[in-house]
């Protein structure tokens, strides 16, 4: 599945407690940009 973007609809399977599976559509309404922690710059 592609990176989530605003307005995208993801079809996601959900396994229910009784073991049955249903498909759910999720409309993406907010995305936090991917952030990869970078080490702080060394002070000079």
């Amino acid at each position, binding site marked *: 599945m592609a*990176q*989530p973007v605003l307005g995208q609809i*993801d079809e996601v*399977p959900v*396994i229910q407690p009784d073991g049955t*599976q249903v498909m759910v559509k999720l409309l*993406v309404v907010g995305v*936090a940009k*991917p*952030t990869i922690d970078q080490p702080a710059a060394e002070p000079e």
Partner: protein
Amino acid sequence: MPTASPGSVLGDDCKLYYSATLGGAGALTEVPVSIDDTISSERRTAESNCRGDSEVSTHVGKPKHSITGSMLFKRGTPGVTFLTMRAAYAAGTTLHFALASGTVTDVDQHVFRLEGKFSRWEEARADGDTVKVSFEIQRTPDSTYASNWAVVSS
């Protein structure tokens, strides 16, 4: 598919789901009982002071999200979910989590998705036949999956 009750918001009767498949396409499995689920979001700040106190600036970082809460399991036979969660904590395995404002199969529920690891796992067996696990999930720093909010449309 039923519609969520009006005013459903995160924090009110939340349900937690997980998947071992990353990227958002894996099947979500419900954690049987989770309580007090909370999404925390914090922007880290740092101050720089390059030319004396007259030029102090504050740098505000991107939000860091985490999920805290408690899971309740049956003492003696806690089940597959308990074992899966504990193994993921012990091994530092990244899982896909979805925290919904209620049953995720109900239209209009709010869902927050994040790929992260358990950073805290506190088991208590103080009460009768219940095992209570207080946990914290933090986003995996090098994950390429953007944490996001969604609404169940159908």
